[in-house]
């Protein structure tokens, strides 16, 4: 491999390289356009709105940032959520997304492009998914060459799992975090391949951006140490590994501690311990290698025995102290979410508030086929391809896929971390397959000019031409030959590095000569290529369908297809929030289940008691208890929190399944976890959750039931709930402590007001039957619907 081809071939190679470079540039550009445009279905089909729940909070924060500036944002104490506790937004939010969108808005505005903050927020995710696919290209290129990189980038641009979190309007942390994640990995691999401190520093900066963006950064700070450990254990330790890892831990931890929400967690919580442990190990290993270099083998052996015996004792002591320290904390130093990652049953056993979130549930098998589709089949092939040959980079990719498969199996939302790994691995698999098949065809096609060259025997150079990845290698060789002359002047340390580089490249190159044996029959190759293209086409069709149909709904606006093909729009949420905004006092407090907290503050601009940032379990449990209590007790709880309005979501009329009655058991569980007088069995009839006539009296008298089904019987005369597919148990009842003030068009959101305490307290004598009083009760009933 050290020899370059003949003069003419060399010139042709340069031309081909230039051509390939331009081609891959345009391919990447198109991939970016694809990644951006496939995410616009939500804007085209619905409108340019922020989706779902968390994005509304991020949007509100971004608005604050653009209005008040970064220092105010940093010190923002929000008194409109978590009443009366308030929330220190600046210190509890991952600022990456907000700062990114805020910066984009600021740049656009200073260029006199007057876009609204909302528009910028809506399109942040699509833009960053284009970046993410480019980052995927870079990462896969580092691992397996340009061809695999392009394939992986194309796959990632439209993988449904990622689309689900990054359609236009899905303005959530993951939108930028996935890009940051892949880019950090790319820089790590790049540093590992080059041993350059420059890239190591960039890597720490990328890690900093990731820490700013998403709590998932702990995945990076655990995966990279795992890989480092793997390399050390398999005897692949090198100074490049040290350069890739040590600066990342030192700089990365320092930078991470600068993010207010992380702060001292960067050195205090167990999630980060692995990185420090490996940091120690890599130093020990480096020391051992250094000593090995200066001692004779016999002396080295003696030193090892000495150090191991002493070190073992010290280690035992340190471990004992650590274990004692960690064991003394109730959660063993781990946060609830992380613990539920290690032990998938942890959350459902101990923390109902984590288990109650649907995206924290384990995924079902179909969701794998839905979210990563054919990649699920290609991943095993890609893993095999990664072992041919196994380099530092490809072992990292394998480790990445293995861990992310595990995590995705624990929490459905971590499917998002699996998606890039699956794309990279599948890209490698597809690219390798295409290489093999196209080469087989090329070998057997007589008309190709390449044929003669191949016949002439210089196998390696022809392979280098045929395969982009090896082109890069060949180019490296040329460059290296030039550098080799300078090598004599450079310092010995650099020389060592070069030598190692040689070894790596030799490893990666040697198998090319073996591939000569992998030449397949012409027909088989053609059919296989056809089948692979077909497979890819199915993938594209599935992705476009998923983007258009499955993942584009903004969830605040719902649509349904009527039998005659017309489109029916349910805009009840915005209707309700607009009502609140226009008809209630600015300082009024609105209570609802925490799901609707972010939307209420952002869209209705009213103070809420609890919201989607579920940091205070007791406060949420208080609201859960109120919802599961009878009217009077609930009134007292809400009154003590200065609540004026209560918002419930009810899907029984139109069949909207994610309503409060379906979430109700979680309210009971979370409430019961803090206030033991709420007992789940009281709400279940023989272990079954039901709201029909068989339901328990506790269930039929709790506030949530009453607020959901108040006057429901007036709609169809029977009170048939279309979500639970049953007739409700208690149909005719009156509210004595609450009054209905607003119900949306499809009854999806119902707003109630707390009645003020009675002006007078009645005597004990039974009410005398007088016409006056009955007349009065009719007149006094304020019913907007009659």
């Amino acid at each position, binding site marked *: 491999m050290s020899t370059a081809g003949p003069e003419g071939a060399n010139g042709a190679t340069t031309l081909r390289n230039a051509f390939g470079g331009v081609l891959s540039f345009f391919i990447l550009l198109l991939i970016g356009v694809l990644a951006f445009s496939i995410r616009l279905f939500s804007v085209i089909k619905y409108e340019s709105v922020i989706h779902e729940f968390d994005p509304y909070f991020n949007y509100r924060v971004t608005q604050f940032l653009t209005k008040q500036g970064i220092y105010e944002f*940093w010190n923002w*104490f929000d*008194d409109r959520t978590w009443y*009366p506790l*308030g929330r220190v937004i600046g210190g509890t939010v991952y600022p990456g997304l907000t700062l990114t969108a805020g910066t984009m808005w600021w740049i656009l505005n200073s260029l006199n492009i007057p876009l609204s903050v909302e528009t910028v927020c809506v399109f942040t995710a699509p833009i960053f998914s284009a970046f993410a696919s480019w980052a995927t290209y870079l990462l896969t290129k580092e691992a397996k060459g340009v061809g695999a990189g392009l394939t992986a980038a194309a796959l990632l641009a439209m993988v449904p799992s990622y689309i689900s979190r990054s359609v236009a309007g899905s303005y959530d942390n993951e939108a930028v975090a996935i890009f940051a994640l892949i880019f950090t990995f790319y820089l790590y691999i790049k540093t590992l391949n080059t041993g350059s401190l420059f890239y190591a520093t960039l890597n720490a900066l990328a890690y900093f951006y990731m820490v700013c963006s998403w709590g998932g950064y702990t995945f990076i700070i655990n995966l990279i140490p795992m890989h480092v450990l793997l390399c050390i254990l398999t005897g692949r330790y090198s100074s490049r590994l040290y350069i890739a890892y040590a600066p990342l831990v030192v700089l990365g931890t320092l930078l991470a501690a600068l993010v207010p929400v992380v702060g001292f967690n960067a050195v205090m919580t167990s999630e980060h311990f692995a990185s420090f442990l490996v940091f120690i190990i890599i130093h020990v290993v480096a020391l051992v290698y250094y000593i090995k270099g200066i001692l004779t083998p016999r002396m080295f052996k003696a030193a090892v025995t000495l150090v191991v015996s002493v070190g073992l004792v010290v280690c035992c002591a340190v471990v004992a102290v650590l274990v004692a320290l960690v064991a003394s904390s109730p959660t063993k130093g781990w946060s609830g979410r992380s613990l539920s990652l290690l032990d998938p049953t942890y959350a459902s056993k101990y923390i109902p508030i984590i288990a109650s979130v649907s995206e924290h549930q384990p995924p079902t098998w179909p969701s794998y086929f839905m979210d990563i589709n054919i990649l699920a089949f290609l991943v095993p092939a890609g893993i095999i391809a990664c072992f041919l040959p196994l380099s530092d980079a490809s072992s990292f990719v394998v480790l990445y896929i293995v861990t992310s498969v595990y995590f995705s199996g624990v929490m459905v939302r971590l499917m998002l971390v699996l998606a890039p790994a699956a794309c990279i691995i599948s890209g490698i698999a597809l690219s390798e397959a295409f290489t093999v098949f196209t080469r087989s065809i090329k070998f057997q096609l007589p008309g190709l000019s390449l044929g003669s060259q191949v016949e002439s025997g210089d196998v390696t150079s022809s392979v280098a031409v045929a395969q982009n990845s090896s082109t890069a290698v060949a180019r490296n060789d040329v460059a290296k030959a030039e550098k080799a002359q300078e090598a004599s002047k450079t310092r010995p340390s650099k020389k060592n590095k070069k030598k190692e580089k040689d070894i790596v490249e030799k490893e990666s190159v040697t198998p090319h000569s073996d591939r000569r044996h992998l030449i397949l029959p012409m027909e088989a190759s053609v059919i296989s290529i056809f089948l692979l293209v077909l497979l890819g086409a199915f993938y594209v069709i599935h992705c476009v369908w998923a983007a258009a149909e499955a993942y584009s709904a903004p969830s605040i606006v719902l649509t349904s297809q009527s039998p005659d093909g017309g489109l029916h729009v349910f805009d009840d949420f915005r209707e309700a929030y607009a009502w609140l905004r226009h008809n209630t006092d600015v300082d009024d407090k609105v209570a609802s289940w925490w799901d609707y907290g972010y939307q209420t503050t952002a869209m209705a601009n009213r103070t809420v008691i609890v919201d989607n940032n579920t940091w205070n379990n007791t406060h949420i449990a208080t609201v859960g208890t109120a919802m599961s209590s009878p009217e009077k007790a609930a009134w007292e709880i809400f009154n003590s929190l200065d609540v004026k309005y209560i918002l419930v979501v009810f899907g029984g009329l139109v069949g909207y399944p994610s309503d409060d009655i379906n979430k109700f058991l979680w309210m009971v569980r979370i409430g019961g976890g803090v206030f033991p007088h709420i007992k789940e069995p009281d709400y279940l009839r023989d272990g079954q959750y039901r709201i029909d006539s068989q339901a328990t009296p506790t269930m039929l008298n709790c506030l949530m039931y009453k607020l959901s089904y108040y006057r429901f019987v007036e709609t169809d005369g029977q009170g048939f709930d279309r979500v639970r597919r049953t007739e409700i148990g208690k149909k005719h009842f009156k509210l004595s402590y609450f009054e209905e003030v607003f119900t949306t068009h499809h009854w999806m959101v119902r707003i109630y007001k707390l009645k003020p305490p009675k002006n*007078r*307290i009645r*005597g004990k*004598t039974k009410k005398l039957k*007088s016409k006056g009083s009955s007349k009065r009760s009719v007149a006094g009933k304020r019913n907007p619907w009659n």
Partner: protein
Amino acid sequence: MAKLAIAIFLAISLVLFSRLSFSRESLTGRRILVLLDDLSIKSSHSIFFNSLRSRGFDLDFKLAEDKSLSLQRYSQYLYDGLVLFSPSVERFGGALDLGAVLDFVDSGHNLIIAADSSASDLIKSVATECGVDFDEDPSAMVIDHNSYAVSETEGDHTLIAADDFIESDAILGKNKIEAPILFEGIGHSLNAGSSLVVKVLSASPSAYSANPSSKLSNPPSLTGPALSLVSVVQARNNARIMISGSLSMFSNRFFRSGVQKAGTSAKYKKSGNEQFVTELSKWVFHERGHLKAVNVRHQKVGETDEPAVYRIKDDLDFSVEIYEWSGKSWEPYVADDVQVQFYMMSPYVLNTLSTDQKGLYHTSFKVPDVYGVFQFKIEYHKLGYTSLSLSKQIPVRPFRHNEYERFITTAFPYYGASFTTMAGFFIFSFIFLYHK
């Protein structure tokens, strides 16, 4: 056309007039509707009515069964107060009924109810809705064989001389009532669970409620301490209601007659009725014991502007002005028991306010080391006074990033350690790289 215009003008001015009459500041023109069983009461109780008139009230006498009765016109109330001197009415005339009376009270207006032994179910149910239960036995009266009023004829001891008043200057005025009250009528009990109703005139422990003309077969249901003769209610919206079991208590005859309580030698030329009823009516019509709190102010110590948010550990001043309505003007209210809470789910600070005797109450304290949305809360509920409950919301934020101490003395060893490490590393690198 002109007539119509005049009619409209009149209607509007009437509305405006009645609107104005609601405000406490207007001295004259407050209107009271007096409902009577028959118009003879107008003259037999004229002293009471004249005392009301002399205090600036316009009295509107109507028969309780008058077909044109109405408390409001165009959703505006025409009266500030209602006096029900019609114990036997079974049904009000016109648009008035139980519900209308209660709505009148619930919109903040005042009510005097006087019953007697002929009290109808309607009157009793009005009282019940206010938290007072008259004896259900229609023929029962209050009898007291120990503290009855001595008169020429021995009688059946239904004319009582009661002198067990509530001790409250706000309700009964500063001057002590010397003479006992003559009372003849029915008794009532209070809802023990109600904090709004207060017994003003209690019967003696030996009093009971029974039919005086028949022999007692069962023990009477209402006796001694449970028996109340006159009670007042202050609703949550500060509407005031006076309920008396005796209409004749208000009569000229009782006002003027002398009284001697059985078993005592003291003879009074004049009963305490006039003073008692007059003072109580002043209270009912908000001429006494009506407080207002204005100018709630708070600011950081040394500043004058009210901030939108406090920081933890700020020192702040809090002040409020409280006045009492004297019947003519707002006078400074002086008390030493007004407290302010700095409240978030529970009071973090509870301070008694000091007064400058001119109505201004003031205190200063340090904001607790807890951030959140706090309230300045004044909950002042004192017997006989309208309840003051006001709250003002104010967020308390944590320190800004640049409000912490920059250099902490106790951390100097750490600063030293990091700087020496840096210097040591620099020197080491220098020697390692260039020493050879």
